[in-house]
């Protein structure tokens, strides 16, 4: 359904090019729940914004394509893009607190997304807005509330309702629960799962919280410094992480059960993306680095079982 | 740090043109005796002459050379602008910073006073105060403008103080055991500097326009040479009805351009300290 091919996107700073997303290819199929995990600054939000066509100056898509149902989103003009947005692909943003217009009733904000795309009567749109609120466990008479009258969790539910308003086939969720407390986060994640079962749509779920992702998503892509370094099914990735970065991330969150292991996370910090890097981008922080890693860039290779990894440890042609 | 504050300023076209304008006026004010072609208070030619080679800006009803008067007027106008701007900024700082820093009852009282002065119209108040003053001159004008010019600055500084005071690095300094004076002057103040300077620029604009207005109304000392008094004499001698447009054009332009110079500086300070505002 969504095919990202060799996408290069980033930011044009005073003569410098910061490659936030570098040659990324990714597919989201129908009914997929794809998780995209990575640390801050790894380019995951840039990727999401590129898909939505929301990348603003100095941000820029340099090359590659984003095909949605066969049409290239990067080549659309403004009007076509406007029509595709929200109707086919919608998005739930990170900061629920600031995602709603503070001076408009939430009902009006849901309704205007419907009216921007469909020729329906206003009353009908309001009926729909009420239905949507009910769907996300908010009392329908809240249509007349203003954002400041809602709690953080309710605001994010409103955003989800809004994202559902036109029955899109793909919803991008960019850290939808990061700003929320654990209990609220859990409730919302469960609700998302239930609604997805009911309505059937694909999700691209972006987060830095790998422990959460392993639990909820079908498939996970790990992003590091602008590149995808590993893709696999969640269970497979959890039990058998191949890339040293994935492995490091997996042992970076303390657990609630089992013996207490002391671990040191991943030392160092991600590389400066405004400088060209020849070899592997994880080289500086890698505990298993080899000589070749510094010189040559590893590409994603298929390890079977739908498991792809970009690391010289698993490449046969090491000595080439 | 010094560099990271000042460097963007040199790259800012608006800021640089503002600086250029102000510098130009300052230079003119300093070297007024050397570049002024005539004594500004002497009758040097036939009254009400249009601009010519001999008198670039023409002459007034007493046959005084207007170019010389404008040049000498720069001194007083600029001085009043800067001194008054400084005075109001100091008032604003004392009131705004103490309200923001101490909070509580002190804040409530100071804020209420500020709000009251904020909505009471400034120029009419200036006129009323100036009208009561028995002696006319530059000092009363400075005082009157400074009295009415501080509230908007105080309000801005207070709100910035409030937000900075609650920043974690200030709490950190407090927990580390720093004294209040250290926290205000070493931790908080460096971050307020740009706003204080911006505040000075707007206060200076206010002062320059206020001074011109009061003098135009004859509420200053009409016998000294300033841009405002040139306009006063022009108006009182019906300059326009006699077609002597040159009499009003130059001093007014000078006020506007000087004001714009400060406005440009102010605008660029805003852009630098708040990168969001940078248009391009």
């Amino acid at each position, binding site marked *: 359904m969504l095919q990202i091919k060799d996408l290069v996107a980033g930011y044009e700073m005073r003569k410098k090019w910061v490659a936030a997303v570098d040659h990324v290819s990714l597919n989201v199929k129908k009914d997929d729940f794809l998780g995209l995990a990575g640390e801050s600054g790894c380019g995951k939000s840039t990727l999401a914004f590129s898909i939505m066509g929301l990348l603003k100056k100095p941000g820029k898509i340099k090359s590659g394509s984003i095909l949605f149902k066969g049409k290239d989103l990067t080549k659309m003009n403004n009007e076509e893009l406007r029509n595709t947005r929200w109707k086919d692909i919608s998005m739930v943003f990170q900061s629920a607190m600031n995602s709603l217009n503070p001076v408009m009733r939430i009902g009006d904000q849901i309704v205007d997304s419907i009216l921007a795309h469909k020729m329906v009567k206003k009353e009908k749109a309001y009926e729909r807005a009420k239905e949507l609120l009910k769907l996300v466990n908010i009392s329908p008479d809240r249509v007349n509330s203003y954002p400041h009258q809602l709690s953080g969790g*309710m605001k994010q539910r409103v955003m989800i309702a809004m994202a559902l308003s036109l029955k899109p086939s793909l919803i991008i969720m960019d850290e939808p629960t990061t700003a929320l407390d654990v209990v609220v986060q859990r409730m919302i994640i469960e609700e998302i799962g239930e609604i997805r079962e009911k309505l059937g749509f694909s999700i691209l779920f972006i987060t830095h919280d790998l422990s959460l992702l392993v639990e909820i998503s079908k498939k996970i892509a790990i992003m590091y410094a602008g590149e995808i370094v590993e893709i696999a099914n969640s269970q497979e990735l959890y039990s058998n992480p191949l890339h040293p970065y994935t492995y490091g991330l997996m042992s970076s969150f303390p657990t609630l059960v089992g013996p207490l292991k002391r671990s040191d996370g991943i030392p160092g910090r991600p590389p400066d993306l405004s400088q060209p890097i020849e070899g592997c981008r994880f080289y500086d922080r890698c505990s298993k680095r080899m000589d070749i890693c510094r010189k040559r860039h590893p590409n994603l290779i298929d390890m079977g079982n739908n498991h792809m990894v970009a690391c010289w440890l698993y490449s046969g042609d090491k000595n080439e | *740090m010094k560099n990271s504050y000042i460097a963007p300023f040199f790259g800012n076209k608006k800021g640089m043109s503002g600086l250029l304008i102000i510098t130009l006026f300052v230079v003119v004010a300093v070297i007024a005796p050397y570049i002024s072609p005539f004594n500004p208070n002497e009758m040097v030619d036939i009254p009400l002459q249009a601009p010519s080679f001999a008198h670039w800006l023409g002459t007034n009803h007493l046959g005084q050379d207007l170019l010389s008067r404008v040049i000498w007027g720069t001194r007083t106008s600029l001085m009043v602008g800067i001194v008054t701007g400084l005075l109001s900024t100091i008032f604003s700082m004392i009131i705004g910073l103490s309200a923001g820093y101490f909070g509580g009852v002190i804040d409530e009282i100071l804020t209420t006073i500020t709000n009251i002065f904020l909505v009471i119209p400034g120029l009419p108040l200036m006129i009323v105060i100036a009208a009561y003053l028995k002696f006319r001159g530059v000092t009363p004008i400075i005082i009157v403008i400074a009295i009415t010019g501080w509230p908007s600055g105080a309000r801005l500084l207070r709100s910035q103080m409030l937000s900075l005071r609650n920043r974690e*690095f200030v709490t950190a300094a407090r927990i*580390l055991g720093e004294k209040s004076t250290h926290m205000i002057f070493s931790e908080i103040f460096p971050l307020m500097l740009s706003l204080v300077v911006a505040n000075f620029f707007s206060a200076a604009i206010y002062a320059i326009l206020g001074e011109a207005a009061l003098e135009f109304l004859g509420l200053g000392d009409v016998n000294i040479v300033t841009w405002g008094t040139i306009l006063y004499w022009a108006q009182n001698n019906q300059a326009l009805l006699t077609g002597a447009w040159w009499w009003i054009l130059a001093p007014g332009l000078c006020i506007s351009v000087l004001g714009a110079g400060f406005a440009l500086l102010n605008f660029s300070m805003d852009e630098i300290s708040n990168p969001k505002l940078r248009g391009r």
Partner: protein
Amino acid sequence: MNDFLKLEGVSMHFPIRKFGKRTRYVHAMDDVSFSLKKGEILSLVGESGSGKTTTARVIAKVYTPTSGNVFVNGNLVSKKMHTSKLKEYRQRVQMIFQDPFSSLNPTKRVRSILSRPFVLYKSMSNSKEIRQAERDVLEVVGLTPTDFYLDKFPHELSGGQRQRVGIARAISVEPDLILADEPTSMLDVSIRLSIMNTLLKLKEERNISYLYITHDLAGARYVSDRIIVMYAGMIMEIGPAEELIQHPLHPYTQLLKRAAPSPETGFNKKKLGYVGEVPSLISPPKACRFSPRCPFAMEKCSKEIPPLYEIGDRKVRCFLYEKSNQENVRFDES
């Protein structure tokens, strides 16, 4: 072992000003009592609005509590302290902040930020001496080469590096107690553990005690000896870390545990369902604050505030554990 820090019935109510009159209060912290031993790491776990940060700030003397007493080393910490006494107190109790971006002054280099503790507490004025002391402390928190970091401004450092500068600043004072207010929550996952490990190392090497504030139950398990669970301004449960997490007594602790992400259990985990939201802290009713959301709520729960019942080395604020109810206790083994 001696209690180094002790809180007795401490409450913090913030007034809401309307027309200058104080009519309503936010009960950010109500009747909080606990103690902390020398060299112990005690975690304060709770969601936002639970009062955990307020507790830390009351201990740090940023806020003056509405009522109750704080004791440090057996001495009462009075509300108004003489300057020299306060300085002595500050030297014992330091703090690490949640947001490494805002807890360092953006206009100052690391070198000048770190010089303050030495000027204030070691009476150093010789710049060479200070520089050497700064190098030593940077070494301890793992920022090497030290001279490289001394010349940096905060905005030139990563979040983790900034947090290390914050830790360096706190330990330069050589405190006995560090209040760590969610020190890892704004950092990248991959470096959280190494910050926690640094804190653990300092505890072992310097016998520093910590009050470690977090919303992450698993993180609390990783670092702490004992855990306090707070909800809506009150302590709900206190107990040794491992025991409390494996066998949570209070229904709220049970909820917290079930809500935490756990890839080990994965999809087969029991669903939470809709469990309501945190109540308003403005003039709350006299009742168990968790009762509106509690699956085990009894009539009594909405009428009075349960006391902290002692069960072995644990304490729990729930009527389920009143003597007469003890037989009916249901443990949630999720």
